[in-house]
C-alpha cells in the first residue's frame, strides 16, 4: 500500500511542479494553490503515464526507465522554478481565506458533505474492488496486459480474440495503474481504486478552487455541493472507469481558459490549456472530439481578439500531450469500432428522423437520471438564473458555453452516425457522456449565477468572523463530523441482517449461501431464499452466549421451514403468504461463526409470470438479535 501511495504521490508532486512552472509569473502560486494542486493530479498522471507507456514498449521492467524520465522531468521543472524563485516564495502566508459568516457556513456544510461523499466512495469501492463491468473488462484489463505481458503487451493486447476489450482505447488510466503496480511489485485493487478516486477528488477540488478564484468562496461551496450532491458522480469516482478522469480534463481545460481571461499573452496558461486538452484525448476516445472542439474554440477566440501568439503555445502544449496518444493510435491500436467502415455510407443517417427522435427522447430521459438523483436539481438551479436575469459571464467564460454546447452537439452527431444499434448504444453510454460534461456544466452555472461577487460582497462582507468565532465553527464542525461518522458506522452492511452489542460482545447475523441478497424499504429489511439457505451468526465474545433470533417470515405458497444448527433441528414453523412474526429461534452459540441452515419442504415458485422471474421460497424479515447469559 505504501509503494502505491509513493507512486501516486510522486506523480502528483511532478504534476504540481509542472503546473507551477507554467503558472503566470505575476500570479502568486501561493494564492492559486487551490487550483494548482488539483490540476497537478491530472497533469502528473498524464505525464507519468506517458513515460511509463513508452518505457513499457522497450523493457520488460519499464519502471526503471519511466522513473528516470520522471526524475529528469522533475529536475528540469525544479530548476526552472528555482530560476523563477518560485520554490522559495511558496508559503502559506500568502493564502487568502474568506471569512464572512456566509462563506464559513457554506464551507462547513461542504466539509460535512465531503465526509459523507468520501465514505460513500469508499463503500462503492469496497462493494466492487475491481470496479463495475467497463472497469474490469476494459480499463483494468488493459492495465493487466501492460503489467503482466511485459514488453509483449502490444502484441497480446491487440489480438483479434480480445477486440471486445476495446484495444484501441487510450491508456492514461491503465498506464497509471500499471505504473503503481510496478512500484508495488504486484497488483492491488487499491491502486486502481485510489487513482480513480483521486480524479474524483481533483474534480471537486478544482471546481471549488476555480469558482473561489473567479467569484467567491460561498459560490465555490455551492458549486462543490452540487457535484457532491450528484450520487452517480460520488459512487462513480472510485469505480475505476475513465469517465471521471475525462470529465476532469474537460473541466481543467475550461478552468485554465477562464483564468487566462485577463491576458492572452499568458504563455504558460496557453501551454497548460493545450496540455489539459491533449491529456483528455490520452484518457478516452471522446477526448479526441474534445481536442477538436477546444482547439476550434481557442483559435476562434484568438482570431476574434486579433492575437495569435498564445495559439502557438496552446498548440505546443496540445502536441506535447498528444505524443503518446498519436504514437498509440497510429502505430499500435486497431481501428476504432465506431470510426471503422465507410462513414460516407452512414451519412444518410443524418436525415433519418427516427434516429433524431430516439436520440432526443433518450437525452430527455437520461438528463433527468444520469446523476442518479432522488430529486433532480435542475429546477432549483434555474431559480437563481431566473432571479438574476441573463448570465453575466466574462468574455473568456463564454468559451466554456461553447465547449459544453459543441461537445453535446458532437456526441449527438456520433450517435446519428454510429454503426451500432442506436438504442443499445444510447442505453449503454449516454449517462456516462453526460456525467463527463457535468463538472464543466456546474462550473459554468456557478460562474453564471454570481457575476464577480458584487452583490455577494454587498450582502455579506459587513459581517466578518473573528478568529474566536472561527474556532467555534471548527469545534462545531468536529462535532458534526463525529455525528456523521457515528451514523454511517451504525448502518448495516449489504449482507447483514442484524447486529447486537451487549456486555462487551458483538453478535452479527449475515446472509450465507442461497439468498438473493438483502432488500429494504423505509420500514422493512428482508431477504428471499432460493430454497436451501443459511444464515451466519458471528459472535465476537469470550464465552458461549445464548442468542435469540426474532424475525418475521412470508412465503410464496404455504410451506414448512426448518432451521438446523449442527445437524440438529432448532426451529420449525409453517409459513404463509402473509407476513407474520413467527416463533423465535433461541440457542447457545459458541464464539466464532456458526451456520444456521434453513430448508423448506416445498419447491421454489417463480415470483412473477415473466420468463426471467426469480424462483423464490420464503423470505426472512426484520431480524433482531437478543442475547442473555447461557
Amino acid at each position: 500500500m505504501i509503494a502505491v501511495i509513493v507512486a501516486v504521490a510522486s506523480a502528483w508532486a511532478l504534476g504540481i511542479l509542472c503546473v507551477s512552472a507554467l503558472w503566470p509569473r505575476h500570479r502568486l502560486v501561493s494564492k492559486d494553490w487551490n487550483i494548482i494542486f488539483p490540476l497537478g493530479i491530472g497533469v502528473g498522471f498524464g505525464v507519468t503515464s506517458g513515460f511509463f507507456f513508452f518505457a513499457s514498449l522497450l523493457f520488460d521492467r519499464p519502471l526503471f526507465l519511466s522513473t528516470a524520465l520522471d526524475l529528469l522531468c522533475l529536475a528540469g521543472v525544479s530548476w526552472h522554478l528555482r530560476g523563477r524563485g518560485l520554490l522559495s516564495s511558496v508559503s502559506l502566508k500568502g493564502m487568502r481565506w474568506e471569512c464572512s459568516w456566509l462563506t464559513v457556513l457554506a464551507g462547513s456544510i461542504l466539509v460535512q458533505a465531503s465526509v459523507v461523499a468520501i465514505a460513500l466512495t469508499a463503500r462503492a469501492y469496497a462493494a466492487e474492488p475491481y470496479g463495475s463491468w467497463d472497469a474490469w473488462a476494459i480499463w483494468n484489463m488493459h492495465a493487466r496486459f501492460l503489467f503482466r505481458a511485459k514488453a509483449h503487451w502490444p502484441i497480446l493486447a491487440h489480438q483479434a480474440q480480445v477486440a471486445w476489450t476495446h484495444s484501441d482505447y487510450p491508456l492514461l488510466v491503465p498506464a497509471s495503474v500499471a505504473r503503481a503496480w510496478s512500484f508495488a511489485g504486484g497488483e492491488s485493487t487499491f491502486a486502481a481504486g485510489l487513482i480513480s478516486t483521486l480524479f474524483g477528488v481533483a474534480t471537486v477540488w478544482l471546481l471549488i478552487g476555480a469558482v473561489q478564484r473567479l467569484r467567491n468562496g460561498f459560490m465555490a461551496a455551492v458549486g462543490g455541493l452540487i457535484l457532491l450532491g450528484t450520487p452517480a458522480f460520488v459512487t462513480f469516482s472510485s469505480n475505476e472507469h475513465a469517465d471521471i478522469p475525462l470529465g476532469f480534463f474537460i473541466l481543467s481545460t475550461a478552468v485554465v481558459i477562464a483564468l487566462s481571461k485577463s491576458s492572452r499573452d499568458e504563455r504558460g496558461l496557453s501551454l497548460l490549456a493545450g496540455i489539459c486538452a491533449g491529456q483528455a484525448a490520452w484518457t478516452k476516445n471522446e477526448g479526441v472530439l474534445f481536442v477538436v472542439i477546444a482547439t476550434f474554440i481557442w483559435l476562434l477566440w484568438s482570431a476574434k481578439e486579433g492575437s495569435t501568439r498564445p495559439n502557438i503555445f496552446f498548440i505546443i502544449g496540445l502536441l506535447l500531450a498528444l505524443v503518446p496518444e498519436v504514437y498509440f493510435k497510429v502505430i499500435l491500436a486497431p481501428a476504432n469500432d465506431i470510426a471503422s467502415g465507410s462513414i460516407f455510407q452512414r451519412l444518410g443517417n443524418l436525415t433519418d428522423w427516427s434516429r433524431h427522435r430516439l436520440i432526443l427522447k433518450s437525452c430527455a430521459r437520461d438528463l433527468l437520471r444520469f446523476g442518479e438523483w432522488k430529486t433532480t436539481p435542475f429546477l432549483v438551479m434555474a431559480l437563481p438564473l431566473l432571479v438574476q436575469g441573463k448570465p453575466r459571464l466574462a468574455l473568456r467564460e463564454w468559451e466554456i458555453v461553447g465547449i459544453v454546447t459543441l461537445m453535446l452537439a458532437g456526441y449527438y452527431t456520433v450517435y446519428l452516425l454510429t454503426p451500432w444499434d442506436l438504442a443499445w448504444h444510447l442505453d449503454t453510454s449516454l449517462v456516462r457522456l453526460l456525467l463527463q460534461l457535468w463538472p464543466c456544466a456546474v462550473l459554468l452555472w456557478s460562474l453564471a449565477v454570481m457575476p464577480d461577487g458584487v452583490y455577494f460582497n454587498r450582502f455579506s462582507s459587513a459581517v466578518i468572523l473573528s478568529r474566536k468565532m472561527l474556532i467555534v465553527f471548527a469545534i462545531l464542525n468536529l462535532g458534526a463530523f463525529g455525528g456523521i461518522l457515528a451514523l454511517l458506522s451504525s448502518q448495516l452492511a449489504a449482507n447483514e441482517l442484524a447486529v447486537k452489542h451487549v456486555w462487551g460482545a458483538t453478535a452479527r447475523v449475515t446472509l450465507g449461501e442461497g439468498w438473493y441478497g438483502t432488500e429494504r424499504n423505509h420500514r422493512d429489511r428482508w431477504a428471499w431464499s432460493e430454497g436451501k439457505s443459511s444464515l451466519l451468526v458471528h459472535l465476537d465474545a469470550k464465552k458461549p452466549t445464548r442468542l435469540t433470533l426474532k424475525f418475521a417470515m412470508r412465503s410464496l405458497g404455504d410451506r414448512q421451514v426448518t432451521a438446523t444448527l449442527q445437524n440438529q433441528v432448532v426451529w420449525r414453523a409453517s409459513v404463509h403468504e402473509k407476513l407474520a412474526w413467527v416463533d423465535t429461534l433461541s440457542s447457545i452459540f459458541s464464539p466464532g461463526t456458526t451456520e444456521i441452515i434453513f430448508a423448506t419442504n416445498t419447491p421454489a415458485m417463480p415470483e412473477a409470470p415473466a420468463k426471467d422471474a426469480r424462483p423464490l421460497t420464503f423470505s426472512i424479515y426484520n431480524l433482531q438479535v437478543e442475547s442473555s447469559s447461557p
Partner: protein
Amino acid sequence: MAAVRIAVLLPVMGVAIFNLVHRAETLSPAPVDPTSAAMDHVMKQEKRFGDLRRSLERRGLSGAIGYMGNSTAEDPHSTEDYYLAQFALVPWVLDRHLESCEWVVANLGSSAAISNLPPSWQVAEDFGDGLLLLKRSAP
C-alpha cells in the same frame, strides 16, 4: 435584492444535501464477511481462477489458449464468464475457436459437465467447480 439572490441559492444546497443523504441511506456498507456468498462476482472468479493461472505459469505456456465455456446449457452468463476468465488469465489470450489450440481452459460451471467433454481432449488438471485445463489428445 441581494438577500433574495443569496436566498435562491439555498434550495440548491438543500437539494444537493438531500440527494447525498438519500444515497448514504440506500448505499449499504460492503459485505462484512468477504468469504460469504455476498462477495463481488469478479472477486469470486479471481479466486476461482487463481490456481489455474499458477498452473499455466508453471507449465510455461504463453500466447493464445483455447476457451471452452458451458455451451451445453443455455447459460445467459456464458459471455460474462468468458470475459471474467480472460480478465483473470491475462496475459494469456483466450480463444473460443479451439481448432488450432493445444491447450484449452474449460469453464464448465459444474463438475458434472466433465463427462460431456469431447474425446479429443484429455484433462491435464482439474481445479474443481467445473474448471479444467485440457490438453489435446494425441491422434
